[in-house]
């Protein structure tokens, strides 16, 4: 190899390492947590600028032809560490965009325009970071002690970059292959349901923004330390799309796929075009390169949306018939004394949608240990009431008191953590999680279900995982779904999905379970079986409020039953007494 070829090889290795680190950060955000960060490149830029500003000497000492902030001439590795920190910190404020109930595509567009604008600002405002000319003569790490042009230094730089890429891989893998990673994937598949199961979406998404941002910042620092310059043209908004293309083509949700994508797209694809003999007017090859990136994205999303290396299925191994208790949570202590056996009470609960009052001043009580039914014609406000009780929707007026505590102002995930858990009328399984993972995702207070817990490793949370798995196996056995443990929930039949959802809700160890038509689309025989199971759970101390259309089910299992019509409570009592009331029969039973 000539020295020019050698230099080129080193270049490729460094670029590969930088792109791998960036793609791993994006893969963690987009592929694992479902945060579509169209502004990803901002955070790489933040890292690169931070590293540059900290390692550059004061601007006058550097010839005075550039103007920039910083210029503190700090020794390596401080600029790199600060770059990673800056990438993470700059990302944090965007949590307000992705963490709120803003549609994922709206948030993505918000981040995209932020990237466009950040570039515009840095380009036009020269005092900040030398404007469109950018920063040059950025010192290489330790360039006082060693010669950055020397071959030994260059090899070490490439090797160091690859070591950091490996470390980044280890980090994102450890986070993803943990109970915390399972929560992230659950949020990605269905965030509203994850919320209802006690996942704090804002905290999860903020953590992913920061983690991905830190990796992006580090990649920027490595790059600027190698090429010694950084300018707005290096981080146009479209560069993010190249990274997205890499992650989508490699396989979103699979970190090996991100590595492969980084090697194929930003490195392989862009380098390959160097070998095409130049043709046409200047700029044509670059234009066609962008067209090709666009085509790659659209074609892959159509023909192979899972990427070259799809996310792999997490298997739990065969069932070993372990048994565990279904209900372990002790009932909240304040409940029995303060509210005399009343588990849930609402006062004048109201919800308006525009001009429509879907729930109009509902006051009900649900007593401990009962299987309370909730019936009413379509549009009576049953599902809306359930959403208000669980906190999926905020109330327009009124009060929800659960176990003696006013929870009206609490978000859904906080109520779920108190043991007030709901299921949904529409299918709400986490499609790309197995049935077992769906169940495990709901386990409360799992040691591995936090970022720090995940980082401490399997040994720290193994005991919790084993206990939870045993409990999940017992549930699967009880509901007869043991052999589907390792099946993707998205591949189940309608009835099996309902069962999975009920089991998942039970995994949270609820004190009060809100079920929205759990038997819809389920075979009648199975429906009666479920009813029996629910009665058994109530006998063990659980309280259940169930919306159901099938009156035979109400007759057989529910007592008392609440009847709703047009947003208000019409009556409540046993089915026998309700059948005797003409207004109830007219409103619902006859119709």
């Amino acid at each position, binding site marked *: 190899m000539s020295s020019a070829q050698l230099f080129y090889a080193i270049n490729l290795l460094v670029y590969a390492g930088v792109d791998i680190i960036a793609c791993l950060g994006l893969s963690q955000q987009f592929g694992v947590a*479902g945060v*579509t960060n*169209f502004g990803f490149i901002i955070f790489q830029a933040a890292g690169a600028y931070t590293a540059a500003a900290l390692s550059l000497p004061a601007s006058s000492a550097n010839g005075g032809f550039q103007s920039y902030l910083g210029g503190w001439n700090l020794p390596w590795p401080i600029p790199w560490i600060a770059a990673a920190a800056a990438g993470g910190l700059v990302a944090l404020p965007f949590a*307000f*965009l992705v963490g*709120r*109930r*803003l*549609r*994922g*595509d*709206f*948030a*993505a*567009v*918000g981040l*995209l*325009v*932020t990237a*466009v*604008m950040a570039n*515009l*600002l840095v380009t*036009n405002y020269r005092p900040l970071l030398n404007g469109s000319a950018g920063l040059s003569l950025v010192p290489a790490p330790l360039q006082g002690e060693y010669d950055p042009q020397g071959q030994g230094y260059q090899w070490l730089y490439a090797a160091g970059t690859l070591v950091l890429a490996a470390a980044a891989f280890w980090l994102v893998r450890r986070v993803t292959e943990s109970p915390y990673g399972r929560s992230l994937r659950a949020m990605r598949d269905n965030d509203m349901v994850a919320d209802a199961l006690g996942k704090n979406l804002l905290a999860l998404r903020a953590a992913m923004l920061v983690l991905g941002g830190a990796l992006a910042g580090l990649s920027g620092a490595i790059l600027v330390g190698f090429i010694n310059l950084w300018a707005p043209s290096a981080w146009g908004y*479209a560069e993010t*799309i190249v990274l*997205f293309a890499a992650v*989508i083509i490699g396989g979103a949700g699979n970190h090996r796929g991100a590595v492969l994508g980084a090697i194929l797209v930003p490195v392989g694809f862009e380098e390959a075009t160097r070998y095409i003999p130049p043709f*046409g*007017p*200047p*700029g*044509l090859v670059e*234009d*066609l390169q*962008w*067209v090709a*990136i*666009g*085509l*790659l*994205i*659209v074609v892959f*999303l*159509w023909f192979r*949306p899972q990427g070259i290396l799809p996310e792999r299925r997490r298997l739990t191994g065969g069932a070993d018939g372990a048994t565990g208790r279904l209900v372990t949570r002790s009932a909240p202590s304040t409940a029995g004394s303060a509210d005399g056996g009343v588990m849930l009470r609402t006062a004048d609960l109201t919800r308006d949608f525009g001009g429509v009052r879907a729930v109009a001043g509902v006051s009900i009580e649900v007593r401990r240990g009962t299987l309370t039914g909730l019936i009413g014609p379509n549009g009576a406000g049953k599902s809306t009431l359930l959403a208000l009780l669980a906190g999926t929707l905020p109330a327009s007026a009124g009060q929800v008191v659960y176990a003696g505590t006013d929870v009206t102002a609490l978000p859904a995930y906080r109520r779920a953590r108190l043991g007030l858990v709901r299921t949904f009328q529409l299918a709400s399984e986490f499609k790309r999680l197995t049935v077992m993972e769906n169940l495990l995702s709901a386990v409360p207070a799992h040691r591995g279900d936090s970022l720090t817990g995940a980082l401490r490793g399997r040994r720290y949370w193994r005991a919790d995982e084993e206990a939870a798995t045993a409990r999940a196996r017992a549930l699967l056995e009880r509901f007869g779904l043991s052999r589907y443990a390792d099946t993707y929930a998205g591949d189940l039949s309608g009835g099996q999905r309902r069962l999975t959802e009920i089991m998942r809700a039970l995994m949270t160890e609820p004190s009060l379970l809100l079920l929205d038509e759990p038997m819809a689309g389920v075979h009648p025989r199975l429906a009666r079986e479920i009813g029996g199971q629910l009665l058994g759970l109530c006998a063990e101390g659980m309280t259940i409020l169930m919306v159901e259309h099938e009156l035979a089910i109400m007759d057989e299992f529910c007592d008392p039953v609440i009847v709703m019509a047009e947003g208000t409570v019409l009556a409540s009592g046993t089915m026998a007494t309700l059948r005797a009331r003409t207004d109830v029969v007219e409103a619902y039973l006859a119709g």
Partner: protein
Amino acid sequence: MSLFLASAGFGLVTAAVLAIAAVGFTMQFAVTDVLNLAYGAVMIASAFVAYAVNQAGASVWLGALAAVAAGSAGSVLLNLGIYTPFRRRGSAPVTMVIVSLGMTLIIEFGLQAIVGGTSVSYTMGQGPTLKAGGLVLTAVQLVIIGLSVVVMGAVHALLRYSKLGKAMRATAANRSLARACGVRTDRIVTLTWALTGALCGLAGTVFAMNNGSFGATSADLFLVVILAAVFLGGPGQAYGAMAGAVIVGLATEISAAYLTPSYKDVVAFGVLLVVMAARPGGVLGAVA
């Protein structure tokens, strides 16, 4: 005061261009639920169709007609060829946005590969300059404002009084329910893309006229301004987009007069982020 009035004049022209663009964008979103980020690219591609006609020796206004036709046909193709198949497959909204971003690259840089990277201008006279009470506008700028007012009136009449407009509103509100009520939703969606594509083509041409010179990537920043107007008015709300266009158009140009012109789009960006953070359903939507 004269600075204010002069910039308000520019603001009115920008608002006129923006209103045409934003109404088209928001109506596409209303019926298809796709934030079509390739909208700006289609705008500029249409502007180049007008340029080709103009270069062939015809009037730029004839070119504008060709741009309207091209924008309409291009948008229908984009929807039928790309978005509808993805939507039929049940792709998530986020996937659709990624697809639309991919289409942006394809259209924009495909166009640049054809027309080259340099900016061009229409061959046209600006007409006499008219002054009225401090406002200074060229005849062309007045025509743009007039065109925009006529287009807004037509959109209003369409949505309010025509059967097609009612069907469009029904499809936007709830597609499956509309279909159940006998609305041929697929046809309505295609017609909507044809109409909004026409608005997109017109917007591209008047944007290019108002800009003076334009290149294949000129609409990148303007898309941010369109998004600001759309989100301010509430995504999917045609009347909201009109009001949003007036506010954002005036705000960007008036602030440009007092700040540096290179930062004028930052105002639109600020509006967009604040609205997204505080009222993602739009500020004007409920009122309009």
